[in-house]
């Protein structure tokens, strides 16, 4: 027989004003299984907690019900008190007679009766409570960072500098990401590559960081502290140990006219290439889809020129499995497809470019070596129109969000343009100026006031070519929406930042969730902004939503601190509120029949298949098994199970059943 102690709290006057606490305690004392029942002014106070601790010892209690405030408030307090007295904390439950009773009903007999009802049901539940023990899982102290942009670089360095091993995976031949493509950065206008490249080199040289470029994460299994990642290292067709990065092969390649990804199609590269001069690692790869040898079986010019004989045409992709304890996803973003703007003529007119292309035009390492020259004829444009919100905040085109960075980089573009072309005129069509960072608004004001960039509030309706000029038809909504027509030499579209093309597949491989724009979803928009719903996987940078550099770096450091905190322990303890699939004696072994309905229902992919075998190894059946490392205890699987083979500890079928039935017990 259970020996349950009931402790009714007055909460000063908070409960006692409307509920007769003494009566509640007395009524509960009569219930079966209740060994002790008492009311007290402040249960959560130290003397109150002492009361519980002493009763547990003296009365030899097997369960505790504290009738007081909401369990969301003090459940941890009272469970701790029980644990201190030697009672398993999960044998303690709270009955909420304050928020759900005394505060919402007037002082009356009925209110007291309701309070008794509430305590009664919890007593019924506690009768069925089982002692539970925190789940302990070991931690592999290696972090996997996916994506080698600024966010990934920062996260990798922070984690590595804290003394842990890091594996950094980048799908391009070099790390650096979009930041490496930028000219200068707002609001300080310092050179992007100058501040980034030292960090890239640091990554490459860090003893704790293993760098895999030209590689992709294919799958991730396991759970927090114990992941296994499958990484595909695409064949670079180069022996990296032998290659010195001299670049002879690059010069030798006869295919030269491939649009350069790094220059956003404004420049070209050969089939064997180093994406940009400061690349890390500074060694070439062969783009097999473009290489003449791989297409026709003939050529091998690069091979003949290589002084160290490092070219390997027969190299295969290599797939490796690595064990990691935490994952930082920092895969970044991309800019919107060109076909998106038929009315802006992108793709139709060469001199209509995206913001990222304009960065390359401005960049000293870009195709024009930093001179502002337009793509069509290389002339210096005297009139440049910048169009913000090109795609962003446009529900008709499927993107209703603000891309956040465009206002700032457009101001920067206009300003840099004016710095380089003194007699040029820059126009910016905008809807709102969102410059909400340190020094940001001042920066925009500077563009307007000092560099005389003409800001026109209105959206552009159409861009078309007339007599060799690009005509921009907009309106000035601050002048009664009067139509404005500008004959420009060049148009720059501040295209929306969107999720990477492969975001969906990656999310599925990692079992993390993503929103309808395919940005990865954080665990809580306010309080857990860098965590995902899968414990042990964190988000940094623009893969979660468009972000500027300081924000990405800040987030990256935040994920690093999360990872380091995780790695500060050798073992993880987790709340034992998890689901369990039953096991029983042969020949049944488990009542589970393996329909795996629970598997599709589980939001955390916590349900695995387990083959049950007899002692001699013959397969009896395949049943479900809950991975306690992944299970978060929602219990969705429990309600689905037809044969009731799966149960949730802490909210078990027996407990919930007892609670409901007790409501109507006389």
């Amino acid at each position, binding site marked *: 027989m259970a020996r349950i102690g009931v402790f009714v709290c007055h909460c000063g006057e908070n409960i006692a004003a409307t509920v007769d606490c003494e009566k509640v305690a007395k009524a509960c004392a009569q219930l079966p299984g209740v060994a002790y029942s008492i009311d007290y002014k402040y249960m959560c106070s130290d003397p109150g907690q002492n009361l519980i601790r002493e009763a547990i010892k003296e009365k030899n209690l097997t369960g505790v019900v504290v009738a007081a405030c909401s369990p969301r408030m003090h459940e941890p307090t009272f469970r701790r008190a029980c644990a201190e007295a030697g009672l398993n904390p999960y044998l303690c439950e709270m009955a909420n007679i304050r928020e759900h009773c005394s505060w919402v009903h007037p002082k009356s007999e009925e209110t007291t009766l309701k309070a008794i009802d509430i305590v009664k049901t919890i007593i019924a539940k506690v009768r069925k409570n089982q002692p539970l023990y925190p789940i302990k899982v070991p931690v592999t102290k290696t972090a996997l960072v996916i994506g080698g942009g600024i966010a990934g670089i920062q996260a990798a360095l922070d984690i590595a500098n804290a003394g842990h091993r890091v594996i950094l995976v980048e799908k391009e031949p070099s790390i650096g990401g979009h930041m490496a493509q930028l000219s200068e950065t707002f609001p300080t206008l310092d050179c992007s590559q100058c501040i980034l490249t030292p960090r890239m080199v640091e990554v490459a040289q860090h003893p704790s960081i293993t760098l895999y470029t030209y590689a992709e994460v294919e799958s991730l299994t396991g759970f927090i502290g114990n992941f296994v990642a499958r990484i595909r290292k695409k064949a670079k067709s180069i022996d990296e140990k032998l290659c010195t990065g001299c670049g002879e092969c690059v010069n030798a390649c006869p295919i030269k006219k491939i649009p350069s990804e790094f220059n956003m199609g404004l420049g070209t590269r050969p089939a064997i290439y180093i994406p940009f001069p400061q690349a890390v690692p500074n060694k070439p790869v062969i783009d097999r889809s473009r290489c003449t040898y791989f297409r026709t079986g003939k050529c091998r010019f690069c091979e003949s020129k290589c002084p160290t004989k490092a070219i390997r045409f027969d190299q295969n992709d290599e797939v490796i499995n690595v064990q990691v304890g935490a994952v930082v996803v920092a895969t970044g973003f991309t800019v919107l497809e060109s076909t998106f703007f038929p*009315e802006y003529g992108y793709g139709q007119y060469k001199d209509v470019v995206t913001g990222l292309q304009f960065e390359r035009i401005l960049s000293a390492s870009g195709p024009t070596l930093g001179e502002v020259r337009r793509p069509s004829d290389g002339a210096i444009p005297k009139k440049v129109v910048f169009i913000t*919100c090109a795609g962003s*905040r446009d*529900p008709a085109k499927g993107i209703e969000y603000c891309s956040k960075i465009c206002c700032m980089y457009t101001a920067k573009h206009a300003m840099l343009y004016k710095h380089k072309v003194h007699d040029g005129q820059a126009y910016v069509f905008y*809807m709102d100026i969102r410059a909400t960072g340190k020094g940001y608004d001042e920066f925009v004001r500077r563009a307007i006031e000092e560099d005389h960039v003409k800001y026109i509030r*209105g959206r552009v309706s159409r861009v078309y070519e007339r007599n060799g000029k690009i005509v921009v038809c907009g309106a000035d909504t601050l002048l009664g929406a009067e*139509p404005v027509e500008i004959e420009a030499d060049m148009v720059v579209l501040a295209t929306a930042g969107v999720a990477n093309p492969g975001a969906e597949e990656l999310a599925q491989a990692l079992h993390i969730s993503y929103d309808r724009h395919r940005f990865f979803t954080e665990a809580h928009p306010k309080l857990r902004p860098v965590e995902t719903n899968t414990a042990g996987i964190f988000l940094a940078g623009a893969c979660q939503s468009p972000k500027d550099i300081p924000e990405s770096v800040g987030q990256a450091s935040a994920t690093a601190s999360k990872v380091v905190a995780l790695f500060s322990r050798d073992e993880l303890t987790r709340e034992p509120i998890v689901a369990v699939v039953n096991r029983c004696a042969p020949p049944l072994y488990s009542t589970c029949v393996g329909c795996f309905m629970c598997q599709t229902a589980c939001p955390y992919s916590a349900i695995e298949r387990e083959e049950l075998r007899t002692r001699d190894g013959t397969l009896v059946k395949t049943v479900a098994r809950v991975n306690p490392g992944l299970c978060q205890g929602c219990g969705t699987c429990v309600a689905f199970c037809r044969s009731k083979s799966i149960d949730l500890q802490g909210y078990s079928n027996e407990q919930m059943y007892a609670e409901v039935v007790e409501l109507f017990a006389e």
Partner: protein
Amino acid sequence: MLQDQKYRSTLSGTLYSKLGIHVERCYQCGKCSAGCPAASAMDLKPSIILRMLQVENERYDREVLQSYTIWLCLSCHTCSTRCPMEIDIPRVMDVLRSESLRQNLIHPRAKDIVAFHVSFLNTIKRFGRLWEVGMIVEYKIRTRHFFQDVLLAPVLFLKGKLTVVPHKCVSIKQLFTWKKQESSL
């Protein structure tokens, strides 16, 4: 409740309740005004009309109905095709026109355009089909623009583009229940 009440009395309320058009969606980007082929001639640009509807007060509603703009809309759908918020502006203009007509708030300079529409519909009413000669004669009487295009007419006749006798189709008079509105002109 309060909101429903409000909706019933204003133009934007009518637009929402009758057609499900949400003028609140407009965030004043001005793309409609920027692309409108008739904007230069309008007194209030399309985006301003939407702004005034958003305010939801009597003064602005009246101003909108009295505006020249609503009669200048060509229903070319350039605005709605490019509107990022997918507002069916030509349809809004349709509603505003019939409301302006109902309340007899037609802009003085738009009287001839209304006359054109009425002449047009009267011709259809009479003959079932459009008969340009009949329509233009009525239009000229209504507007006293007797000399407009007179030089074109003989050429049109010569080229066989104007017919002296109207084509007829069986009466579709049963459709003309809008007569009441016409009488208010």
